[in-house]
């Protein structure tokens, strides 16, 4: 039951974040959507780890790596954004 519920949650989050990534006007909001999409995909990965007779630790390690890569992506995108929009108003 827990798995079914959280699978539904992850699927809805993936769909919401995907639609936001393609339709949002503000670039920072697309970045927020990307973060939510990453969390939802991590949730799906951990859920696949649970159903395999006992808990499979490999997806957990993958997700840990993924979280750190996601925060690196966020930092790079924010630095690019500040470089473009930090001082002057946008074109």
């Amino acid at each position, binding site marked *: 039951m827990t798995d079914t*519920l*959280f699978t539904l949650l992850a*699927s809805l989050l993936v769909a919401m974040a995907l639609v936001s990534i393609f339709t949002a006007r503000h670039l920072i909001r697309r970045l927020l959507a990307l973060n*939510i999409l990453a969390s939802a995909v991590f*949730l799906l990965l951990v859920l696949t780890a649970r159903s395999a007779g*006992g808990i499979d630790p490999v997806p957990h390690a993958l997700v*840990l790596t993924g979280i750190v890569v996601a925060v690196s992506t966020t930092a790079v995108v924010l630095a690019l954004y500040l470089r473009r929009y*930090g001082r002057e108003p946008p074109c």
Partner: protein
Amino acid sequence: MLAIDVLLALAALATAGQCLLLPGLFRAVANLMAFGLVMALIWVRLDAPDVALAEAAIGAGITGALLLTAVGQLPASQRRLHPEHYRVPRWFITMAIIVVLVGGLLWVAMLELLNTGLANAGLAKEVAAALPESGAEHAVTAILLNIRGVDTLLEIAVMLGAVAVIWSLQPAIPPPALGGNYPGLTTLARWLHPLFLLTFCYFLWQGTHAPGGAFPAGAVLGAGGVLLLLTGSIGWMYRYGYNYLLRWLLAAGLLLFLVTALAGLLMTGSLYGLPPTFAGYFIIAIEVAAALSIALMLMTFYLFGRPGR
């Protein structure tokens, strides 16, 4: 327990929805941080304590601090997410239908996969068989630092690449001038820092036999360092004279990892193949180096540019 699950799922949906739909950049970022905390609780419910620790420190803490600082640097014209008179867009219903369709399809596919496809899949048995030779008792630490150590090595390389990209873009943002508006904050940051250090050491020590390890430890130390940067307590990082030291410290984690991988190549003939007798010592050395370099890189992300000059 079902009630807690439903509550957590609703809270995650609500915070994510508010983050993606409501006007106001600050509100969206605050909702993303709340979403990170809810996700950390969900990881606990799903028996993934390592992920929960890392998510609580990185997803809710450092990502939020990065976003808030960047938003604070933007001119006022960029802070608004929508024009003045915000109204629900016309294609809202279309978007809702697309969300339900895509989400439903993915849900059905995942349920199918969970119920039929994964009965005998997974690597739990293989990991359990390799665990005694890996040098760590906790499976996730053993995978991160020995069995799939190459992944972690490349991940540190990705972080170093991110630091290089950020440094090449612009000079660093100076620490915010608090100017006596928050007299307690500097003292609080200094008093709290021993606690951050204690948590860091505890996670490192615990990592070999229980949930914890390099990633949560590095994230906690990085979060404490960001707090110190915010209050302007780490002056040396901005100075030009310390630039080379900072570069070497940033590269140290990756270099030690590479040395370990090459030592494995010399001793066992395969890249990153650690001999079982010494694996425990290697793991402790890599764990400390990886945690310190993760913490330092998370702190340099917060500068948003090249320090010095």
